[in-house]
């Protein structure tokens, strides 16, 4: 190698290092794993942040390749596994934990008020009850199944339902064997059954029993994901990963411009989907999802 070439390489190396330093990202997004919902949320987060704060650089890392975080101004975790890994690190910048359920967030250790916050997947209880009021005006009864992980959540739903003058059928399911009886009791008269993200009650295999019993008792199910609607729920209320990503970006913008972090938030943007086939089959005529969504948003004064 000639000395001239050596000098050239040295200079270009310096230049490269300088460019890299000037483009140092201020926000690190940590995803539980790459692909699927996490990428969808990460992409939406980046696009929205780009729109709100065009000069902000975003780096993305998976849990597995997590390095030092000291140089970042803000950390965003997507998924509960990412949230737990980041929370376990001692020294770290303020963190927004996103795309995770309340149950996972509440169980996490090492969180500090003002330095940690969350954008949760759980829809507010009031919105769920409002949806039933808007979409199923024929139903004055709400059925709730309370499991070991959903006592508080079911309490909130019952409270919201009571405020809106619904009758409540609340049954406790502590063991797998309780489910059959609880369902028979809760749905002894037709009611709108609200599914909750408590996997001790609602899971991939209890769902058959729940959907079939509800269907037979002519009771519509309100699910918390699009999959629920495909499985047979009459109504679905949920936020897409992209909507969560968007809300997370709005919160990130706020955090980057100073101040402490607000308390955990429920989703602001949401989707409603319907299963008109199941609805029609049990004698319910539904409005279009967009119409229902607009009516719910209007009731709570949220963006339409």
């Amino acid at each position, binding site marked *: 190698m000639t000395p001239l070439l050596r000098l050239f390489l040295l200079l270009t190396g310096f230049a490269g290092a300088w460019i890299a330093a000037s483009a140092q990202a201020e926000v690190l997004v940590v995803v*539980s*794993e790459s692909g*699927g*919902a996490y990428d969808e949320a990460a992409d939406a987060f980046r696009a929205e942040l780009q729109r709100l704060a065009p000069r902000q650089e975003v780096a993305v890392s998976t849990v597995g390749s997590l390095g030092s975080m000291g140089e970042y101004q803000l950390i965003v975790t997507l*998924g*509960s*596994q990412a949230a737990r890994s980041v929370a376990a690190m001692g020294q770290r910048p303020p963190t927004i934990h996103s*795309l*995770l*359920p309340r*149950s*996972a967030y509440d169980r996490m250790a090492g969180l500090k008020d003002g330095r940690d916050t969350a954008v949760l*997947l759980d829809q507010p209880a009031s919105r769920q009850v409002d949806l039933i009021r808007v979409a199923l005006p*024929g139903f004055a009864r709400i059925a709730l199944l309370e499991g070991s992980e959903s006592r508080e959540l079911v309490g909130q739903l019952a409270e919201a339902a009571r405020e809106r003058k619904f009758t409540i059928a609340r049954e406790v399911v502590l063991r797998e*064997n309780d489910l*059959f*009886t609880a369902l*028979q009791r809760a749905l*002894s*008269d*037709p009611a709108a059954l609200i599914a909750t*993200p408590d*996997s001790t009650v*609602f*899971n*991939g*295999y209890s*769902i*058959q*029993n729940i*959907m*079939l*019993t509800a*269907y*037979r*008792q002519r009771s519509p199910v309100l699910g*918390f*994901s699009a*999959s*629920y609607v*495909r*499985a*047979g729920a009459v109504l679905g209320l*949920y936020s897409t*990963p992209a909507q969560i990503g968007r809300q997370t970006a709005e919160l990130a913008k706020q955090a980057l411009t100073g101040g402490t972090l607000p308390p955990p938030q429920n989703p602001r943007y949401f989707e409603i989907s319907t*299963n*008109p*086939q*199941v609805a*029609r*089959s049990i*004698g319910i*005529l539904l409005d279009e999802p967009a119409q229902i969504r607009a009516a719910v948003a209007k009731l709570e004064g949220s963006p339409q």
Partner: protein
Amino acid sequence: MPVTGFRRSVARLFALLAALSGAPAFAAETLPPGGEGAFLGELPVVLTGARLLQAQRDAPGALTVLDREMIAASGARDLAELLRLVPGFQVGQLSGSWPLATYHGLSDQAPRRMLVLVDGRSAHSPYFLSGIEWEQIPLAVEDVERIEVFRGSNAVAYGANAFLGVVNIISRHPADTPRWRFKATEGNDGISDRTLSAGFQSPELAARLTVSRRQDRGLLEIPDARRSDHVDFRAELPLGPRDWLEVFAGLSRSRVGVGENQSETDPSRRRHIDLGFAQVRWNRELDENNHLRVSLLHQTEEGRDHYTLTNPGDLAALPFPVRVVVDYDSTITRNEFEVEQTLGGTSPWRMNWGLNYREDRLVSRQLLGDRSPFTSRYLRVFANGEWRIAPDWLINLGASLEDPNFAKAKLAPRLSANYHMTQSQTLRFALGQAHRFPTPFEKRADMRFYAESSLITEPGLVAQSYRAAPNLEAERVSFQEVGYLGEWPQWRTTVDLRLFRERVSAMIERRVEDRILLLDIPSLSPTPVPIPAQTAYFDNSVSPTLRGFEAVATYRPGLRSWIQIGHSQIHIDASANDPKADENERSAPRHSSFVFAAWDLGRGVQLSAAHYRTSGFGWSAGPNGRLDDTHRTDLRLAYRFALGPSRGVAALTAQSLEGPYSDYRPTQEANRRLFATLGFEF
């Protein structure tokens, strides 16, 4: 503990089944890690189009649905009995183990103008006159989810046997079954029924296994006691988020009394019928609006009923003993394959099409003349489109083309339009055509009886009850109907009216010809001995027309409380050339009505009652077989209670409070019945 041990073995057996099927653990495969899996993961599709009950307002015909609560409140021990609660149906009992049910008359001792399906499987037997084998349906009444009765032809969806109506019996889903169930019924007339059922649910498999027995002494005066043991199995295995496999299997073993006391030609004896089937249905949701289903069925049935007569009937005059061997033994094998695709769902149109192939192989020396098998094969293609041309108009157009190997292929088209006048009221217009192919017996019957004796060198023909009708072709029905459906959920009331005209042409009907048979007995007489005989055969020449209406009004303020009133009126005009005009015209009651009510009295107590009234008619059994006006009242009192972790029900049922009644012929009576039931589930 032995019980735990048994449970573990059952669990192991099911787990093994799951492993054999290669089913992946559904939850583990499809849910992302962490708590958000519940929000972002897939779920199995539970309520698919195939499982949904079509909204009555959108159905292309009149639909009556009997749900589990109604079935329980009726107190019915047999499936056929339930059809008394459907307007236009006639239900009777040829014997205690042979229920008869038909829609709009035109029937005999083996009603075959209406189709009965159990989870999509035909309950028609190709044996003899090919009626519905109610007694051989392994499904216990307690395992019935609902019965959907399509009143009117539906050959488009179900093929040629769905000539005048279709009864669709849908069993309870294995995921919606308690872990254990036990039920015992005891009553007069030797009623002693038992049902034991186990349910198993895991992410890899949901299964139900029911073992049941029905036993009683049958009707009064005739030797028709029955004991039927059934095993019924249904399982569902998720293969992935959009695939699942359904497995159905059953065994039925009946020992039933047949014949008559002191009869020379039809002696009192026991008939054995054993049936077994296995059916697999693979379902795939190609996408939300594209469902594919492939099913395979294999069924076998063995009947044993043979006996020897000595000098029966006219042979009594012979001065030496002759034997006549009667051999009704039969072997029936059925194989069926079907593929069906449903497209659309949320869009303004929906379509389903498919292909069905069925093969029935019948071996019966007595019915077909020798032991060589007769195989009937049916190939059917069908398509049905549903198009919502406007929010308040739904058009339904379909056709099926069926080609059997022993008769000409036939096309059955149907067109219907449903007009939703208001949110709660629908008018329906429908017209179309359907066919019914001759059964193997109607076409190929060769039922001969031979006398054997040491004095006769060759067995001599002494009777031929039926002969073949080689030119027999399919019969046809052309129908028109106007329906009205009013549904007022706010008043918990529905009203369903159906006005119909059904013209049957080339109807297959039994004819009888007189013959003289010659029996050669050289030792007795140099010339053959003449024996007068009557031989029946089938012919298609007459064309009756049926007109009438059916009305049902239901008020149902709660799931366990309702009052339902049904009425039907049928007028049958036989064609001018009909030698059995009177018989055909009186083959359905001019008027029949029912009231079915149940009331939840609180504290787990439910009282239910049904009253049926039917004007005189006959099951085409000649003028002597005509029934007078009949009525019958049933009453049931049930109490549901909790006992520790289990739920129990105790019920007392009385059938025909008025006393013995006839529903097949006047000389044959069913007793008033009283039985108590105790059931537990946990």
